[in-house]
C-alpha cells in the first residue's frame, strides 16, 4: 500500500516536471526583437513609442550580451532548432550570407524600403546573391584618428600615403613612451578588418572570383599586405603589443596620449572627447593611409535587422522592421546613442549634426567602404585570415609561407560554396 502511494507521488512529480509547457492563444500579436543592449535607452524608447501607436501589437525587446560571438552562438542555437522565440534579429553584417543560405531569415519584401535612401556598403552587406535579406540599421567603418595638435606643431599635413605616414611618425616620435600607430592585431575578428584595410590600401583584394582566377596575384598582394603590417611593428612604428590589442586596448593607448595615430571605429571619437581622455579637442579624423595612387577603403562593420523565417507573424514583423530601421528611429538612435545611421539623409539632419558634429567627417569616410568576404563560410574564412595573419605578424611563420597558406585555404573555403 505504502509502495503504491510512493509510486503515485513519484509519477505525479514527473508529470509536473515534464508537462510544464503550454501555450496561450489570444488576438494580441507579440513580437520579440533580439539585439545587443543599448545603454542609451533609445531603442527601448522607440519600441515603447511603436507599441503605443500600434494597438494589438506588442514588441518586446530582448537585450543580448554585448559580445558579438555570444549573440551569434545563441542565434544559431535558436534558429537551427527552428525556434520561433525571436521574430526580429539584429545581425552583424558578416552573418547575412550564413543566415540567408541556412534559410533562417526572410527576404525583405519589395517596396518595404527605398534602396536609394541607404549607404551603399551597408546595403550590400544586407544582401546575398542579389537578394535583400535585411535592412541596414547602423554602420561602422575603420577610421584614422590623429593628434591634430602634434601635426600642426610640427607643421605637417595629415599623411595620406604610407611614406608620408612614416615620415610623420619619425618626425613626431621623440618620446620613447609615445608610439606611432596603434591598431588591432590580436587574433580575433578585428584583425581581419585591419588586415583587409591594409590589403585594400595597397590595391589588393580577396574577392572569391579573384581568388579563383588570379590566385598568384592575390597571393602576392596578401604577402605584401602582411609584410607592410609586419614592417610597421618591426621598424618600431607600431609597438609589439598591437599583436595583443583589441579595440579598447588600442583606444586606451591613444586617449592616454601615448600614440600619435590610431585605427579604430567611430565610437572612439566620443571616448576621445569624453571624461578621462587626455586628448580632448586635439584629435582629428582622416581616411586610412594608402599606397600612392590607391584608394584606402575602410572595412564595414555595423548591424542589420532581419525577420526570422520561423516568426509566426511575418507581416507585423516586417512592419516593425521598417520602423526600427526607419528615419525616425535612426535619428533618435544617432542623437541619443551616437549610432551611425545607414540612411544618407540622416547625416544632413540638423538635430543629428548638432548632437554629433563629427558625423559630417565620418560621412566622407563612409563613401569609401568595403565589406568583408560575403560567404556562408565566413566564420571559417575569418579564422583562416586571423590565424595566418597573426602567425606572420608574430614571426612564428615567414610572411611568404603565411600568405601561401592563407590564400590556399581561403580558396578552398570561399572558392567552392555549398
Amino acid at each position, binding site marked *: 500500500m505504502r509502495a503504491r502511494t510512493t509510486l503515485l507521488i513519484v509519477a505525479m512529480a514527473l508529470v509536473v516536471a515534464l508537462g510544464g509547457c503550454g501555450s496561450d492563444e489570444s488576438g494580441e500579436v507579440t513580437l520579440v526583437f533580439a539585439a545587443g543592449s543599448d545603454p542609451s535607452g533609445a531603442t527601448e524608447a522607440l519600441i515603447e513609442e511603436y507599441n503605443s501607436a500600434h494597438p494589438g501589437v506588442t514588441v518586446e525587446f530582448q537585450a543580448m550580451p554585448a559580445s558579438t*560571438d555570444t549573440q551569434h552562438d545563441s542565434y544559431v542555437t535558436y534558429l537551427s532548432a527552428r525556434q520561433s522565440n525571436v521574430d526580429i534579429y539584429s545581425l552583424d553584417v558578416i552573418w547575412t550570407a550564413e543566415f540567408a543560405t541556412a534559410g533562417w531569415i526572410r527576404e525583405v519584401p519589395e517596396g518595404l524600403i527605398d534602396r536609394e535612401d541607404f549607404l551603399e556598403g551597408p546595403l550590400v552587406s544586407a544582401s546575398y546573391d542579389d537578394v535583400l535579406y535585411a535592412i541596414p540599421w547602423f554602420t561602422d567603418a575603420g577610421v584614422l584618428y590623429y593628434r591634430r595638435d602634434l601635426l600642426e606643431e610640427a607643421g605637417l599635413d595629415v599623411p595620406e600615403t604610407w611614406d608620408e605616414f612614416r615620415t610623420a611618425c619619425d618626425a613626431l616620435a621623440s618620446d620613447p613612451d609615445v608610439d606611432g600607430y596603434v591598431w588591432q592585431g590580436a587574433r580575433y575578428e578585428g584583425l581581419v578588418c585591419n588586415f583587409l584595410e591594409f590589403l585594400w590600401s595597397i590595391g589588393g583584394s580577396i574577392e572569391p572570383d579573384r581568388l579563383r582566377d588570379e590566385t598568384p596575384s592575390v597571393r602576392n598582394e596578401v604577402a605584401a599586405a602582411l609584410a607592410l603590417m609586419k614592417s610597421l611593428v618591426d621598424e618600431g612604428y607600431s609597438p609589439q603589443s598591437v599583436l*595583443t590589442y583589441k579595440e579598447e586596448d588600442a583606444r586606451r593607448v591613444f586617449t592616454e596620449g601615448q600614440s600619435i595615430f590610431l585605427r579604430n571605429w567611430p565610437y572612439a571619437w566620443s571616448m576621445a572627447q569624453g571624461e578621462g581622455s587626455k586628448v580632448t579637442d586635439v584629435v582629428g579624423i582622416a581616411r586610412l593611409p594608402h599606397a600612392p595612387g590607391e584608394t584606402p577603403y575602410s572595412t564595414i562593420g555595423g548591424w542589420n535587422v532581419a525577420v526570422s523565417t520561423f516568426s509566426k507573424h511575418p507581416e507585423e514583423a516586417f512592419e516593425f522592421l521598417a520602423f526600427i530601421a526607419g528615419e525616425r528611429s535612426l535619428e533618435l538612435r544617432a542623437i541619443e546613442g551616437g549610432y551611425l545611421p545607414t540612411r544618407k539623409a540622416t547625416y544632413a539632419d540638423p538635430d543629428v549634426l548638432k548632437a554629433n558634429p563629427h558625423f559630417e567627417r565620418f560621412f566622407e569616410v563612409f563613401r569609401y567602404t568595403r565589406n568583408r568576404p560575403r560567404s556562408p563560410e565566413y566564420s*571559417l574564412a575569418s579564422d583562416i585570415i586571423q590565424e595566418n595573419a*597573426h602567425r606572420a605578424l608574430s614571426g612564428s611563420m615567414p610572411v611568404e609561407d603565411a600568405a601561401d597558406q592563407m590564400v590556399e585555404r581561403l580558396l578552398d573555403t570561399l572558392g567552392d560554396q555549398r
Partner: protein
Amino acid sequence: MIRGQQRRLALWLLLPSLVFVTVLGAFPILSQFVLSFTDLNLRFPADRGFVGGANYARLVTDAVFWQDLGNTLLFTVVSVGLELLLGLGAALLINRAVRGRTALTSTLMMPWALPTVVAATMWSLILNDRIGLVNSLLSRLGLISERVLWLGPKLAMTSVILADVWKTTPFVAIILLAGLKSIPRHYYEAAELDGANRWETFRAITLPLLKPFIAVALLFRAMDAFRIFDLVWVLTGGASGTETLSVYIYKVLFRYSEMGYGSTLTIALFVIVFLMSLGLIRSMRVQAE
C-alpha cells in the same frame, strides 16, 4: 515476502534517477558518437547524411587538431607538474604551522574559489603590457627596461600556465593537506626515536603514505587541465600557440556549425581523457600493490 516488496519499491524509487542518468549522461554521449559519423551542419540540418569514417579520416590529417593536441599536452604536463610541486610544498608548510592554520588555508583557497573567467580577466589586466601590475612592479624594481609582452607571441603559453598554476595550486594543496592529516602522528614519533632526519622521514613515511592522495590530485588535475577552455579563451583567444583542443572544438561546433566533425573531435578528446585517466588509475593500483 517483505524483503521482495522492499526490493521492488527500491527499484521503483531508483527508476527516476536511472532515467535521468540515462537521459542526461549516456544518451548525449551516444548521440555524440552517432553524430560523429555524420556530416550534420546546423545550417543545413536536412542535408545530414552518414559519411562513415570520413570525419575520423579528416581528424588524422587535420594539422590544427595535432597542433592543438600538442599545445594541450604541453599545457597539461607543465601546469599539473608545477601545481603538484607547489601544492605539496604549500600543504607541508600549512601542516607544520602551529597557529593560524585556518586563516592560512582559507587565504590559500581564494584563487580556487574565484570563477575561472573572473580570474582570467583579472590576469589579463595584471599581465597587460601597459597598465599591468607585473610590468609596473618589475620596472620599478629595475628588472626590466622595456615593457614585457606577457600575452604576446613568445610568452603567451607561459602566462596561461602561470595563471592556471595560481588558480589551481590551492586545490592540489587542499587534497594533499587532507592526506598529510591522515598520517598517524606516532609514525613520525617512532621515526624520531630511531634517529631519522627530516629528509628520511619525508621519503620513508610522508611520501609513500601520501601517494594515493597525490594520485587523486593528479587524476583530477590532469583531466581538468586537458579540457582547459575558459582561461585560454579570455587570455589569448587561442593565439600564439595557446589554442587547446577544447577551444578548437568550440570553434568547429559553434562558429562553423559543423556538428558532425565537431562531435568527432569531442569523441577524440573524450577517448584521450578516458585513456589518460585509465592509465593513471592503473598505475595507482600497481603502486598500491
